[in-house]
């Protein structure tokens, strides 16, 4: 499982970039975090999860009621990194080509030429992804998993790094299309922001008076640093006891739920744990890293038949009962 990192790595022309020292990555993630915190009040946990998801080469799904700052979080992280950022507002009439791009006929050259869609960016914000029909949603599938897009038989590489931050609304269920289970599985983490507590909300109100802080937000890092930091994370040590622990957790969910987490889920779990370990300044993963990321990585990959138990409670039970070594 340690070398799964290479399989998940998109085939890119950046041939194994030079990894940064662990301490540098740790500082970097702190800087990004601090930068985001200038816009987002509170939600420290969610912010660090998003940051580590990017470092761990994962995609993030933000799921909550409207107006709690999902889009703002995605925008601020994109701004913090000096990189290509695009945003797709998913609507019921959005077509797959609106996401991936389309071949158009150039009258001058009398040739079809490819006009790239918004997916061709380093950070893609898919806003209200569940408002689009499944066909459009699935256009993101290939992009997220393979780092490439195929239009009219031609496969095109997406830039590296490529991260999708999608948001979805938990309200108005009759006007939305639930994300296919297979697609949900491709998100490394699914996060809930929740409402800010009264102090935070009042603090937030104070900041938004006048100019919105997002407008003055500046990038704290560049693309190359992110790529190298990602390499550091991918190289973080995962020893057998931790791998076995992750396997036991996965096994538990498979035994105690209708559908437990997939092997892809286990891979994501360890990737997220690696990112967390590095962000803590450690070059190796300890079970606590796994425990820390397990709820956000595993919960959305579990299907239960019991209405009383959702994926999250299964994960909590797993953490309660699976033994650590």
């Amino acid at each position, binding site marked *: 499982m340690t070398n799964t990192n290479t399989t998940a790595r998109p085939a890119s022309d950046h041939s194994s970039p030079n990894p940064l020292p662990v301490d540098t990555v740790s500082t970097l993630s702190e800087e990004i975090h601090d930068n985001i915190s200038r816009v987002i009040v509170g939600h420290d946990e969610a912010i660090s999860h998003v940051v580590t998801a990017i470092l761990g080469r994962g995609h993030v799904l933000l799921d909550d009621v409207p107006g709690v700052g999902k889009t703002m979080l995605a925008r601020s992280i994109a701004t913090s990194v000096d990189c290509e950022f695009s945003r797709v507002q998913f609507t019921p009439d959005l077509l797959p080509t609106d996401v991936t791009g389309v071949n158009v006929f150039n009258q001058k050259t009398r040739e079809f030429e490819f006009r790239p869609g918004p997916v061709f960016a380093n950070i893609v914000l898919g806003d209200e992804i569940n408002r689009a029909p499944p066909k459009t949603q699935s256009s993101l599938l290939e992009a997220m998993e393979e780092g490439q897009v195929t239009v009219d038989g031609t496969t095109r590489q997406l830039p590296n790094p490529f991260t999708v931050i999608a948001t979805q609304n938990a309200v108005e269920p009759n006007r939305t299309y639930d994300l296919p289970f297979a697609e949900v599985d491709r998100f490394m983490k699914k996060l809930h922001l929740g409402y800010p507590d009264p102090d935070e909300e009042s603090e937030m109100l104070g900041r938004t008076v006048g100019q919105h802080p997002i407008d003055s937000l500046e990038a704290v890092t560049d693309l190359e640093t992110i790529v190298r930091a990602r390499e550091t994370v991918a190289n973080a040590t995962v020893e057998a006891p931790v791998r076995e622990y992750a396997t036991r957790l996965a096994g538990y969910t498979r035994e105690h739920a209708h559908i437990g987490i997939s092997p892809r889920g286990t891979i994501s779990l360890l990737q997220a744990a690696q990112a967390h370990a590095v962000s803590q300044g450690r070059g190796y993963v300890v079970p606590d890293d796994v*425990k820390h990321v397990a709820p956000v990585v595993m919960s959305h990959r579990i299907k239960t038949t019991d209405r009383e138990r959702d994926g999250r409670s299964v994960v909590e039970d797993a*953490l309660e009962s699976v033994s650590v*070594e």
Partner: protein
Amino acid sequence: MSSRSKRGVTSVDLDGTVGPRAFRIVALGGIGILTASYVRVLHQDVTSVVGGTETLFAVVAAMLVAATVLAYTIRPRTAILAATVAAAVGFSYYLNAAGVELGVAISAWDALLSDAITLATGLPILRMVEAGTWALGFAPGPVFLSWYLAMRERYVWSVVPGGFALLFLVLTGNAGITVTMLGTLGAITAVAFGELAHRDGSIAQADILAIIFALMIALSLSVTVIPGGDNGGPVFIDSDGPQTLEGTIDSSPGHSGIGGQVDLSPEVRFTAESERASYWRTGVYDRFTGDEWVRTGETSEYDGSLESPPGDYETVEQEIDLETEIGTMPMAAHPLSVEGSGIGVAEVTDHGQIHPVETLLERDEYTVESAVLDPEPNELRTAGRNYPDEIQASEYRQTPEDTSSEFEDETADIVEHADNPYEKAVAIESHLRSSKDYSLDVEKPSGNVAEDFLLEMDEGYCVYFATAMTQMLRSEDVPARYVTGYAEGQQVDDDEWVVRGLDAHAWVEVYFPGHGWVEFEPTPPGDRQDAHDDVLQDARDEGQSGIDTEQSEDIPLEEEEEEDPDGDGPDENGTEDPDENGSEDGTESEERNESNGNESGPDPDDSGGTDTESEDEESILPSISFEDAVIGLSLVVGLVAGIRRSGVGSHVSRTAHLYWHGSQDTPAADAERAYRRLEILLERTYRPRRENESVREYLATLSETDELDPRIDEVGKTYELAKYSGDISRERTDEAIELVDELARERLPVIGNSTDA
């Protein structure tokens, strides 16, 4: 959980399930033990005595094979039917052999039923005439049915037939404590492990069973369950000290034991008025088991007269006055009629001996008319071997199956020059008298008493002499029987004898066609008398009461009469009449009852000596070797299981582990071991780490409640490095070990100085 973890090993194993196959084998073993227990009782108590061991084992083996084969081919109902038929056939065979017509048996079913009840209320099987056949009829049914059901995995039901068989043998008093316990344990094992096999039990559950078994054994040792059973008490309680000879010989109604060292009671038992001296017979025994004599056959109510001997005889009338309570009726052989108080409830054995139904009381008296045989030796020499059918068919020529050929060869040598049964008897008698010494202080041999006495022992008392002679005659095919009673006693008048407890005696009767049973005396008479006189003299010197009547007390022992009774006459030319040296004052005979007899209770030794069973006489060693081994083994198993269960073992090893790091390993393993030691330490101060807790979480929650020593964090960090980064230096590990040593010493200063790892 990796197997390297010292801490995890026990808990992992305990809950691991064992294949049902293993449990099944144990359950089948349990049924096997149960079956073996009652087959062993049948073998040891019946067939090894009366013969038929090979047949019995063949039948059992055949039933086991049949049950195994049929287990999967016939249905339970058919099997039960088959077993019932097998049992019915077996018992009809037995009835046939015992001379009971099947038609009669069916019409007399109530008699048969009462027989069965008699058996089940404590009559040992050996007292049945056709005990061997009975055993062969008894065994097949339960063996087949229980094994059949066990093979079909119906363990609970399979215990029923076996358990019933064992219970029956317990009730007859044949199955001793050890065998019963083994059988019961077998049954419980079968049920318990059969259940585990059905339900995929774990080792932990098997542990609990082991503990329960050990408890059961320990508890059952302190309880005696079967009142009529053979074993009067717990196995370990050794009734030390010798018994009285009298008690050994004559206490039990149906069998007569052979003891080790015995005492003699000088108390007066009865006085007899008779025209001639005689041995006073109280019991006749025909079946020899190797260590005791058993009387087979039935008793019938005394109806006023008894069968007389086939040949010539003189009649002698005796009046017996009892001086103490006594459970037998001493009288000269062979009684023809009896009159007196309490005689209405007397019963007669198949062997022509009269027994009281209830214990006779002091001052009871009765008069017996006996037929005394006094044949000339020549008559006996020519008596021939033309034995009547009832003698042929009886047990009078029985020897235990395991009688060795050495015994037979030795006997054959002794009677080499004898041409007829009479000369053989005389030869054996004189051989025993001359070659063995008389002693009351002998250790009971563990094997066949007759054999050991003839071949190995140098001395013994009457029981040994009589047993050996009877068995020797039987090995020469001469019908003989072992009789018990009292020697003639001290003559106090022309026609009066005082008989004491120390006169208790055993001798031999040999059958001669045309004459009947003739008495022989293999015990050296002079030696016996001397030994007994010493006892009486000592008792007189000590002033013990109840040892003399008024008539007897003045008579010095040295002047006592010659020992041989008339009944013993034929081989000694039949000439001696007792000397006339008794005192004259026969008129005072009434007063003596008041003067002495009243005050004296029965000798306490009598009651102590009533248990004639072998356990009590055996030296401690042999009884320890088998029973203790079994019990000890099960206790050890239980103890081990208990230790595992309670975790004492792991506790001890962990404590040791705490102080001593042990030999060095790889840095990673050492760092991990150092942390485990720390964890044990923390566990004592705070709480154990939960299974689902990582080291980091554990230390973090501990530091929430209490300021933790920074060294603890350091060790935790080293552990994490070793375990999860795969990159640990020797120095760092050594440092961690050092820290844990320090911590252990500080917190548990008692023996901490010895560690310098």
